[in-house]
C-alpha cells in the first residue's frame, strides 16, 4: 500500500481537500479496505491464486485438432473459407501477373507518372528512383510480389475499414460497439493472431492477406467515422432541405466532405499493411519479407538489408504520394488536367511497350549492385570493436549486462514479489487518476484476465521489459524531440533517419542487437527502443512546435531564457502531445515484444513464437491474449480521457 499513499502527493494539485483525485483515491482505498483482507485471508500466497485461473490448453487443443481434421472436408471450409482463400489467391495472382506483364520499365513509368499527376514533379522523380533502386538491389521480383500482396490487402482493408467506419459514422450505437473492437485490433500484436489464421487457411498468401486486413483496417474505419461525424452541419442541412434521400445525402455530401479524412485513413492503412508484409513472411507470404527472413537464417545482415531497403523505399514513396494527394485535395484542378493525364498515360504505355519490344521485361541480372558484403563487413567491424573492451565506457556487452542486473532484474523481481492484489490496486489508482472509473475498471479487468489465463509471472516479466524500454524511449525521445523542435535544420536531417527506423522491418536489426548486446532481455529492450523512438520524437517535436506562438512571444518579451521558455511555456502547453507520446511509446514497445522473444527476451514473446513454430494453439494464443491484456491495461493507464484518433504518428 506504500505506493498508493505516495501517489496523491505527486499528482494532486494544491487544493487537496476538494480535489477529485483525492476523492477517487479515497473511494479506492475504501474498496481496497473491504476486499484486500478478504483476498489475503483466502489466498495468503502473494502470487496469483491458482483457484482463480482457468486452464485453456484442453479446449484450445481440441479446437485446433478439430480444425486440422475437418479442414479438408467440413462444409464451412469447402463452401466458405476455401472460396475466400481462392479469391485472395486469384486476386493476388492477377495483380502479380499484370505487374510482370508490364515489365520493369512499364511499372516504373506508370508509378512515376501517377506520382507526378497526384503529387508533383519532385515526388515523381523520387518514385522512379525508388523503383529503380529496388531493381538495382536485385529485388525486382520480390518487390513485385510484395506489391501485389499489398495491393490486394490494402484494397480489402479499405473496403472492410470503410464499411465499419460507415456504420460507426452513421450510428452512435455502432460507434460505441465498434470502439473497443477497433481498440483491441490495434493493440493486438500481429503474431498473436497469425497462428489461428494459419490453422484455418494454411501458410501462404491468403493467411497473410487476412492477417494484414485485421491489422490495417482499423485506421481506415476510424478516419471514415471521424470524417462522417465531422461533416459540416450547415451543408448537410442545406442538402436535406433540397429533399435528398438519406443515401443521396451520404453519397453527394457527407462522403465527399470527408475526403480528406478518407485519404488520411488510406495513408495509415497502407503504412500498416506494409509493416505487416514482413511479419507475414513468417507464415510463408513470400516477397521481400521472405527474403529478409531467409537472409537471417544464414545470419546475413547485408542480404537482409538489401531486401529491407525496398520495403523502406516503398513505404516512403507511398506515404509521401498519398500524403501529397491529401494536401492537394482542397485545390481546384488545373484547367488542362485531363489533357495532362492523357499525356501521362500515353507516355507510360509507350514506356511499357518499349520495354516489351526490347525484350526486357525482367530486370537484367547484370544491373545488380551487391551491397551485402560491405554491409556485413561494417556490421562485423562495429560489433568487433564495440562489443567489449572499449576503454573507459566499457563495451556494449558490459552495458547490457549492467542494464540486466541493475534495471531489468530488480524491476522484474519487484513486480513478481508484489502481492497480486496490490498490483491491481496500483493500476486502478493510476488509471482512475488519469481517466474515469470506466478506464480504471477496464485496466483492472485486463490485468486480472492475465492472472485468470494463468500467465501471471511471465506477463510481469514482459511488463518489466516493457516499462524499462518505455523509460529509455521517453528519455531519449523527449530529448531528441525537443532538439528537433528548436532547430529546423536538425529536424530536416532527422526526418529520413526516422523514416528508415520506422519502416525498416524489425527482423533486420535482430542480428545487430544480439551482436551488440548478447542474447537476453537487454537486446529485446534495445530493439523495442529503436522501433518506438521515431514516433515519440515526432509527436514531441510536433507538439512543441504547435505551441501557440503568441504565448512564446510574450514569454520572450518578458525576458525568459531559452530554457525557461521550454520549461515554463512550451512543455506545459504541449502536455497533451507529450502524453500522447507516452501512450504511443507504450503501444509501439509492446508491438516489438515478439521480436524480443526472438532474441532471448523470453516470457510472453517467446511463448507466442513458440506457439507459432510448434503449431501449439494453447501456448501461443494464451500468451498472445496476455499481451493484448497488457496492452489494454497500459493503454488505459497512460491514456488521457481524450481519445486519440489513430495508431502511429
Amino acid at each position: 500500500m506504500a505506493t498508493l499513499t505516495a501517489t496523491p502527493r505527486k499528482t494532486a494539485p494544491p487544493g487537496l481537500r476538494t480535489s477529485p483525485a483525492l476523492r477517487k483515491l479515497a473511494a479506492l482505498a475504501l474498496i481496497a479496505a473491504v476486499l484486500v483482507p478478504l483476498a489475503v485471508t483466502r489466498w495468503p500466497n502473494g502470487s496469483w491464486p491458482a483457484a482463480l485461473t482457468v486452464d485453456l490448453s484442453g479446449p484450445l487443443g481440441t479446437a485446433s485438432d478439430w480444425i486440422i481434421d475437418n479442414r479438408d472436408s467440413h462444409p464451412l471450409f469447402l463452401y466458405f473459407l476455401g472460396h475466400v482463400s481462392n479469391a485472395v489467391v486469384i486476386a493476388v495472382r492477377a495483380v502479380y501477373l499484370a505487374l510482370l506483364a508490364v515489365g520493369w520499365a512499364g511499372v516504373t513509368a506508370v508509378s512515376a507518372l501517377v506520382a507526378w499527376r497526384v503529387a508533383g514533379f519532385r515526388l515523381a522523380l523520387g518514385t522512379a528512383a525508388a523503383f529503380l533502386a529496388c531493381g538495382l538491389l536485385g529485388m525486382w521480383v520480390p518487390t513485385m510480389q510484395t506489391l501485389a500482396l499489398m495491393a490486394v490487402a490494402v484494397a480489402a482493408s479499405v473496403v472492410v475499414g470503410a464499411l465499419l467506419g460507415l456504420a460507426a459514422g452513421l450510428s452512435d450505437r455502432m460507434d460505441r460497439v465498434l470502439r473497443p473492437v477497433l481498440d483491441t485490433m490495434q493493440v493486438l500484436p500481429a503474431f498473436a493472431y497469425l497462428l489461428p489464421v494459419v490453422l484455418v487457411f494454411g501458410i501462404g498468401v491468403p493467411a497473410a492477406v487476412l492477417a494484414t486486413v485485421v491489422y490495417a483496417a482499423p485506421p481506415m474505419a476510424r478516419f471514415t467515422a471521424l470524417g462522417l461525424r465531422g461533416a459540416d452541419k450547415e451543408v448537410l442541412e442545406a442538402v436535406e432541405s433540397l429533399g435528398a434521400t438519406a443515401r443521396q445525402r451520404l453519397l453527394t455530401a457527407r462522403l465527399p466532405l470527408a475526403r480528406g479524412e478518407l485519404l488520411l485513413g488510406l495513408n495509415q492503412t497502407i503504412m500498416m499493411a506494409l509493416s505487416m508484409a514482413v511479419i507475414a513472411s513468417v507464415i510463408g507470404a513470400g516477397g521481400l519479407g521472405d527474403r529478409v527472413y531467409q537472409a537471417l537464417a544464414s545470419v546475413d545482415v547485408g542480404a537482409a538489408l538489401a531486401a529491407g531497403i525496398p520495403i523502406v523505399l516503398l513505404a516512403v514513396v507511398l506515404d509521401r504520394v498519398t500524403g501529397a494527394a491529401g494536401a492537394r485535395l482542397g485545390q481546384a484542378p488545373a484547367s488542362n488536367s485531363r489533357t495532362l493525364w492523357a499525356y501521362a498515360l500515353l507516355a507510360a504505355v509507350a514506356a511499357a511497350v518499349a520495354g516489351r519490344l526490347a525484350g526486357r521485361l525482367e530486370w537484367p541480372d547484370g544491373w545488380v549492385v551487391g551491397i551485402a558484403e560491405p554491409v556485413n563487413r561494417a556490421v562485423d567491424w562495429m560489433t568487433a570493436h564495440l562489443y567489449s573492451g572499449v576503454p573507459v565506457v566499457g563495451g556494449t556487452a558490459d552495458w547490457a549486462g549492467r542494464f540486466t542486473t541493475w534495471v531489468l532484474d530488480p524491476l522484474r523481481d519487484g513486480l513478481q514479489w508484489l502481492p497480486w492484489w496490490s498490483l491491481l490496486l496500483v493500476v486502478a489508482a493510476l488509471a482512475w487518476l488519469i481517466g474515469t472509473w470506466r478506464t480504471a475498471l477496464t485496466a483492472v479487468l485486463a490485468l486480472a484476465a492475465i492472472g485468470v489465463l494463468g500467465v501471471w509471472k511471465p506477463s510481469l516479466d514482459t511488463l518489466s521489459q516493457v516499462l524499462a524500454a518505455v523509460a529509455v524511449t521517453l528519455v531519449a525521445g523527449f530529448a531528441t524531440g525537443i532538439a528537433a523542435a528548436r532547430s529546423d535544420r536538425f529536424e530536416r536531417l532527422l526526418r529520413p533517419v526516422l523514416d528508415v527506423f520506422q519502416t525498416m522491418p524489425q527482423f533486420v536489426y535482430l542480428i545487430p542487437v544480439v551482436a551488440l548486446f548478447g542474447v537476453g532481455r537487454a537486446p529485446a529492450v534495445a530493439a523495442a527502443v529503436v522501433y518506438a523512438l521515431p514516433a515519440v520524437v515526432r509527436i514531441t517535436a510536433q507538439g512543441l512546435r504547435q505551441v501557440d506562438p503568441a504565448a512564446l512571444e510574450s514569454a520572450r518579451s518578458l525576458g525568459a531564457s531559452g530554457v525557461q521558455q521550454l520549461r515554463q511555456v512550451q512543455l506545459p502547453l504541449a502536455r497533451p502531445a507529450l502524453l500522447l507520446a507516452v501512450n504511443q511509446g507504450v503501444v509501439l514497445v509492446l508491438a516489438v515484444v515478439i521480436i524480443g522473444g526472438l532474441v532471448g527476451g523470453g516470457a510472453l514473446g517467446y511463448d507466442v513464437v513458440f506457439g507459432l513454430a510448434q503449431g501449439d494453439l494453447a501456448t501461443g494464443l494464451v500468451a498472445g491474449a496476455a499481451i493484448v491484456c497488457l496492452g489494454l491495461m497500459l493503454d488505459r493507464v497512460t491514456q488521457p480521457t481524450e481519445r486519440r484518433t489513430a495508431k502511429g504518428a
Partner: protein
Amino acid sequence: MFRTRTTAAAAALVLATGCGAADMTRQASPFSNARGAKTVTLSVQSWVGAQANVAVAQYLLEHELGYRVDTVQVDEVPAWDALSQGRVDAILEDWGHPEQEQRYVEEKGTIARGGDLGVTGHIGWFVPTYFARQHPDVTDWKNLDKYAERFRTPESGGKGQLLDGSPSYVTNDKALVKNLKLDYRVVFAGSEAAQITQIKQFAKEKKPFLTYWYTPQWLFEKVPMTEVRLPAYEEGCDADPAEVACAYPVTPLQKYLNADFARKGGEAAHLLRNFRWTTEDQNEVSLMIAEQKLSPREAARKWVDSHASVWKKWLP
C-alpha cells in the same frame, strides 16, 4: 442498378473461384507458374543445412529438368500443415515429428514418405573445443556443475547458462536440467540467428559457454565445439517428455512429399525421391552459403559442377 451490379460481382466471384466446393487440399501459391513453366514449391527451414538441400534440388530441377522452383520459408510443424494442403510440394529435411507423421502419413494419407536424405542428424550439448582442451573433464555431464560458475551470464540468474535456440527445434533441455539435477538454467535465444550470433561473439573472446547444438552444422567449421556426454540414449527413454534423463537419439533425416505431388509430380517428384547425399556434401554447400556468403544458387552451382557423379544418379 447498384443491387444488380453487386449480384453480378458476387456471381463473377463464385464463377472465378469455381462453383461449389473449394478443394482445401490443393492450394498453390499465387506466385507459382508465373511464366507458364511447371513449378515445384519447396519448403526451406530456418537452418542452413535445409537451405543447402533446397538450393541443390532447385538448381537441378531448374537446369536439368526445366522446372521453375519457388521456395517458402516455414517453421517445421507449420511446414507439415502446408505440405498436407499442397502449399508446398516437399520437405527435404525432417528431424522427426512422430505426431505429424501419424496424423498426415498414416491417418489422412495426404503426405507420402520420400525416403532418407542420407544425412544423419544428432542433437546434443556442446562446449567450445578451446575450453574442452583446457578442461577435458567438462565433456562429462557429471562434472558440469563444477563449471556452472564459468558459464554464468546476466540472464542465467546465478546459475550456469545453457543456451538454447529456436522455439521450433526439438528440445528436452528444461526437463534434462531438472531431472539430472544440474545447477543450470536454460536461456532460450529465441531464434537460430540470435544463437549463432551469440556463439560467434563468445568464440571471438574465447569465453566458455554451454549450448544446445546439432550436427550436421556449418558453424562447427568456424567455431569448433565438443559434445558433452549425457546419459546414453536408449530406445524409449525420451517417451515421457517430463521424465527425460538421457541423450538425444541419432536421427537419419527424412524427406516427405505431398501425396498428390508424389503420384503426379513426374520427373520432379522422381528427382526429389532419389535425392540422397552425405553430411560432407551438405556441409560443403552450407559453408559456402553461410560463411563465404555465396547466394544459395551460386553455392549449389559450384557443388553441382564438381559432383556430377553424385547427382547424375538422381535424374529420371
